């Protein structure tokens, strides 16, 4: 049974483009669904439509099989956690958590018990009589969570709840939320722009772009078999390296060449992307995740799978080293949009990040030889971004 169903749900602002375009999404009961995408992709709008804070222009939205298109937020049996927590500043923690129960005119003793239970679950008991301004960011965040769970709603909605926290606290709260959701078993719709959050938290992740749903899949599946070029570039950090390359096939062996390099593809690549065989003499987008590189000595590959590069920057992360280099080919863009978030940066060739073992010491300006694990590579059509499967 699905807890939430979006059927062709569309949101169009006055004279504007569609913020959400014919969204079809089934969220199962008890599922942790993450909506992820760059800013302006429509993920928050989708969530706000689900909350009842935005009117739905078209399509049908159901919660628990009930059409809720025209139901006010208070009648939808949902709870929401906002990015800035939206606590009531003039109410104590206790009043904040209990406000919904007060509005619903719940019996005072029962309400009190539920508030205290929620507070205990979140470790807020000693702060119950404080005002939000006397709380730290993490505590405020937990109060916002408490306000949501005290009502035992059908669905939790979370709109980037962790983005105002510092990095360490964010990791902590991330696991807290995962555990809380697992314990309560309540359906959760979680919006974030952070793909790390999406990958670590969601049972399934829905990737959106420009109002259009790109792919819905469990995190690992998104990572391993991205449905298109955008998903491939968006999921993963550092992002997948996308290189415009020419395909040549000689005696059944597929080669890709870009800049001065010519790489022989391992048979595994062609097995996973059989579409490559029809692309002789055409351009494809060759996708290599940073971990698909290794320093030449570390793995046993032939010389035709090794390239020499100059290190522009080496970031030692401890367990690994991120080597930044550049291939002299035009950078890949999707529908004319650059993938580089820093668009004004002079684009000269395609920047590449390779992740090599941390035991190596690599200096800037050094020439190194990188081996390519081509059997793991991804291939996309440069015109429509589809994978060549």
């Amino acid at each position, binding site marked *: 049974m699905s807890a939430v169903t979006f059927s062709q749900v569309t949101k169009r602002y006055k004279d504007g483009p569609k913020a959400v375009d014919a969204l079809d999404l089934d969220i199962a009961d008890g599922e942790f669904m993450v909506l992820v995408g760059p800013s302006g992709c429509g993920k928050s709008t989708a969530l706000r439509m689900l*909350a*009842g*804070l935005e009117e739905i222009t078209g399509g049908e939205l159901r919660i628990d099989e009930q059409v809720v298109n025209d139901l*006010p*937020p*208070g*009648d939808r049996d*949902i*709870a*929401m956690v*906002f*990015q*800035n927590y*939206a*606590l*009531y*500043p*003039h109410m104590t923690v206790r009043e904040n958590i209990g*406000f*919904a129960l007060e*509005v*619903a005119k719940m019996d005072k003793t029962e309400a009190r018990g539920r508030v205290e239970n929620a507070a205990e679950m979140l470790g807020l008991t000693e702060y119950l009589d404080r*005002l*939000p*301004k*006397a709380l730290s960011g993490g505590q405020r965040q937990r109060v916002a969570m408490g*306000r949501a769970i005290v*009502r035992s709603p059908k669905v939790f909605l979370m709109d980037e709840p962790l983005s105002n926290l510092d990095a360490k606290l964010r990791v902590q709260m991330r696991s807290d939320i995962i555990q809380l959701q697992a314990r309560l078993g309540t359906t959760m719709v979680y919006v974030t722009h952070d793909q790390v959050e999406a990958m670590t938290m969601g049972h399934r992740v829905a990737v959106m772009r420009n109002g259009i749903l790109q792919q819905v899949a469990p995190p690992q599946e998104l990572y391993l078999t991205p449905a298109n070029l955008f998903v491939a570039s968006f999921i993963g950090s550092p992002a997948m390296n996308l290189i415009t390359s020419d395909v040549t096939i000689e005696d059944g062996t597929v080669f890709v060449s870009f800049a001065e390099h010519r790489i022989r593809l391992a048979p595994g690549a062609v097995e996973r992307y059989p579409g490559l065989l029809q692309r002789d003499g055409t351009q494809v987008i060759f996708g290599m995740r940073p971990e698909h590189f290794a320093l030449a000595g570390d793995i046993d590959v032939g010389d035709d799978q090794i390239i020499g590069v100059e290190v522009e920057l080496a970031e030692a992360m401890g367990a690994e080293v991120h080597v930044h280099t550049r291939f002299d080919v035009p950078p890949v863009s999707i529908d004319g949009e650059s993938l580089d978030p820093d668009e004004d940066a002079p684009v000269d060739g395609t920047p590449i990040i390779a992740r090599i073992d941390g035991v190596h010491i690599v200096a800037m300006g050094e020439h190194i030889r990188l081996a390519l694990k081509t059997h793991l590579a991804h291939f996309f059509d440069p015109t429509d971004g589809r994978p060549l499967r």
Partner: protein
Amino acid sequence: MSVRRKGPRATAVKVATYVLLGTVAIIVLFPFVVAVSTSLKRNTDIFTYPPSLVPRTERTITDPERDLESATVYVLPGRDGEYALADNDIPIAEFRRIDDPTVVIARPPGDGTETDRTTLVDGDEETIYLLDVDGEQVEVYRARLTVGGLFVPITGDGESVVELVNLATPDRTFGPRFENFSEVVTEKNLGRSLTNTVLVTIAVVVGQIVTSVLGGYAFARIDFKGRDQLFLLYLGSVMIPFVVLIIPLFQLMLQLGWTDNLVALIIPFVFTAYGTFLMRQFFLGIPKEIEEAALIDGASRATILWKVMVPLARPAIATLATFGFLYAWNSFFWPLVIINSGNPDNGLLTLTLATLGGRSSTDTNLVFAGAVLAMTPPILVFLFAQRYFVENSASSGLK
């Protein structure tokens, strides 16, 4: 935190600052002090010279042994010690010497031996008397008959003296006269005016808060057609000076039959574009998410307004209430125009005070008592409300 400079120069600057501030404070406070002091004085004490800021009263003494009851204590010219005025109606003859008419000798009227001679004083014929002064017979004439006081010594061991009361100086001590306040309230109709002013002020302030909160919220958060144009129009009305409105407003009141009626002081001032603007701006500053959270919590618009927005807007409401209060409390010109019949039942504090302090006023102490009564509530309100101006508690903790 900035680093503060230390050393003698900094100290000098600090001292100079405090001296300057202190001077200005004294200058500003002085009229208040004078008003309060005058409001506690007796009317006779106000125009004394040298003037005094301390309200004084004549010292009295009660001493059954000397048969004195609440007798005023005086200092007599040319005599040591203090005297109490035991009797005020002793007839006195004022004799002047023939050879030196500037010397005045006060005696009981029966004193002196009448002779048959006369003398001319300023064209009047006066009988010459022989008076015993320190054992010597002196020729005098009787300048006038008057009444004086019998002064009994209470310190030292002088003798009782009969003297003109106005030549004696009463000994004054600190003594505020609080009856000024009750008198001005009961006898000068200030009580009724005070009630009216309080009534009108409360009605105006409450009305302004209600209309401004509702209007401000609607302009800030409810989307309706022509909202922003309407708001501009509304705001534009702030630019019209009140004097321009007086005649049309008066005609309107005339048609409604509200002249000489307190309603005319309330209804026109309950709607305030300024207050609506103030509340709208404040509501705009409250994050939308807080309202959305309340919506999701199931609250209705009314609940949101009452339980979330209004408590958050407390500083703005306090500001609005203070301005509304001061305006309504101090308003003078419009009441003067509309409460025109002189009906004392509809008087306002400002009107009554203006009458009280008018040209023919003699009770200066009562005028000042009324003024002090009139200015105390605004001062209290301001002292109480100023923490809301300073306090910014509502906006902290929002983000």
